[in-house]
């Protein structure tokens, strides 16, 4: 998919996020929006997956370790065709397959249940290890928040992945700089993130703008060439990206827009859509 097409899909993913969280009256728009381009890139460009065969044993896997940003992943899965986009309106409703945090038994296309921070990366490591044990060629991707890496289990998993040379594993850190209580460096600084992963024997790729498809594309192409080491992609992003009043605001970590805010957000995204259609 070319860059323009990816941008269009990402904009649809952002609409899905806002629509879902607004309908749920709860959820996490900020980190879903910062990772919207990443979700789009993974499902529409990078990963070998087929929505018609979601359980294909040889498919690539994705684990959303920062599970609270499920609205972004759900929107990507819906746009990819795993389930109807209309389902996003049922997010967090009783009886919906779209739980507040990912539940693999209910949602087509989900490779792992997640949401308790720090745990998803371990499951991703297990999937990558399984491929090595069975000489399978699939690749495994997992997305972590920059606040999430405060969890000790992340580094247990990183140590293991580095020690086992899991070069089929790509750990992505969404470095939007904000967590619930404020800036990550004010709460409990995880920096330097790149040097930490290097010390755990990862090949580290810094992405200056993780909301730019050219930069994502370059990073994931580089990652494919790495042999003998797992890869960490540390991508700087903007929390709330694409919705004017949500950008760089920690307060939009876990708050749903009201009707008025919803209208403004959708208007923002409509403008982006119109601009993209002119290209």
């Amino acid at each position, binding site marked *: 998919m070319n860059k323009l097409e990816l941008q269009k899909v990402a904009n649809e993913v952002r609409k899905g996020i806002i629509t879902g969280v607004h309908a749920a009256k709860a959820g996490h728009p900020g980190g879903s929006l910062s990772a919207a381009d990443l979700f789009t890139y993974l499902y529409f460009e990078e990963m070998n997956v087929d929505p018609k065969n979601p359980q294909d044993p040889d498919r690539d896997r994705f684990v959303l370790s920062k599970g609270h940003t499920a609205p972004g992943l759900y929107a990507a899965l819906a746009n990819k065709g795993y389930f109807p986009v209309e389902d996003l309106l049922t997010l967090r409703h009783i009886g919906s397959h779209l739980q507040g945090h990912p539940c693999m038994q209910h949602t087509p296309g989900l490779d*792992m249940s997640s949401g308790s921070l720090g745990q998803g990366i371990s499951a991703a490591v*297990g*999937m990558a290890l399984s491929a090595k044990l069975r000489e399978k060629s699939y690749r495994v991707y997992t997305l972590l928040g920059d606040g999430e890496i405060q969890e000790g289990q992340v580094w247990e998993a990183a140590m293991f992945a580095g020690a086992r040379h899991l070069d089929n594993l790509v750990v992505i850190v969404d470095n939007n700089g904000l967590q619930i209580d404020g800036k990550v460096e004010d709460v409990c600084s995880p920096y330097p993130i790149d040097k930490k992963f290097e010390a755990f024997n990862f090949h580290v790729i810094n992405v200056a703008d993780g909301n730019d498809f050219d930069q994502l594309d370059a990073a994931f192409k580089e990652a494919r060439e790495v042999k003998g080491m797992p890869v960490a992609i540390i991508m700087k992003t903007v929390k709330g990206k694409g919705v004017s009043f949500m950008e760089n605001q920690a307060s939009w970590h876990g708050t749903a827009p009201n009707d008025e805010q919803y209208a403004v957000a959708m208007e923002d995204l409509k403008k982006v859509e119109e601009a993209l259609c002119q290209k």
Partner: protein
Amino acid sequence: MSEVKKIATRESYGNALIELGKEHENLVVLDADLAAATKTGMFKKVFPERHIDCGIAECNMVGIAAGLATTGMVPFASTFAMFAAGRAFEQIRNSVGYPHLNVKIGATHAGISVGEDGATHQCNEDIALMRTIPGMTIINPSDDVEAKAAVRAAYELDGPVYLRFGRLAVPVINDNDDYKFEIGKGVVLRQGKDVTIVATGLCVSSALEAADMLAEDGIEAKVINIHTIKPIDADLLVEAAKETGKVVTVEEHSVIGGLGGAVCEVLSEKYPVPVKRIGVNDVYGESGPAVKLIEKYGLDGKGVYASVKEFVK
């Protein structure tokens, strides 16, 4: 009784893994730097490529097991009960239990029979913790024969299983030809009309000894071995309560939330009778030789005998 063969169930675990490993290529064993103690080192010797030492990182080990299970492998994640059910509780709950993944937790060194290492390593809370996880099967085998059968049954069951093993060599009591293991089915080892002793794990042999002693005093105790604590054999427990009117539970575990708790939950709702719970009485363990500790905490044959006698009089 003089020449009873004794084997620790952790040893049985190691042996059973080897047997199953020969039959099933998708079986993989994980450990957290305790392979010599959990006896998964025995498996490692035969199948080095299928033994994954995760280092001292139990939470990650459980998560890796979950990831492996999503790809069709059957991982047995092994460490001490304290670090499996205790430290990694939430990983078992959220990464294994919630998605109902086919992960087996092989928890060795359960209970006070850990011995000299003392209270930090003596997990008397694991059954209680694991019981709260929806869909978790919990098996606490009483001897070598049962432990091996349990490991096989756990492999064959599609879903999470918590297997509880001990460090101390315990008498082999199930080496009869007609022994059959079925998950969720209690085993009546002795008939009696005066009281039912429901025991699990190494306390089953204590219960049998106690029943012998009680018989000499004219008290006929029915003895039931509950190897599967979840799902528990409620029908058998109710039937026994109806027959004997009094029930005693015996376990090497806290009296809170383990076998005693489970039996009380069943009987209080279905057929209330007086119940006496014998176990670790809401205290921490301590250092000492395992056999001496079992005696001190009243979990040997004599201790069980004394408690039951007091209860039925």
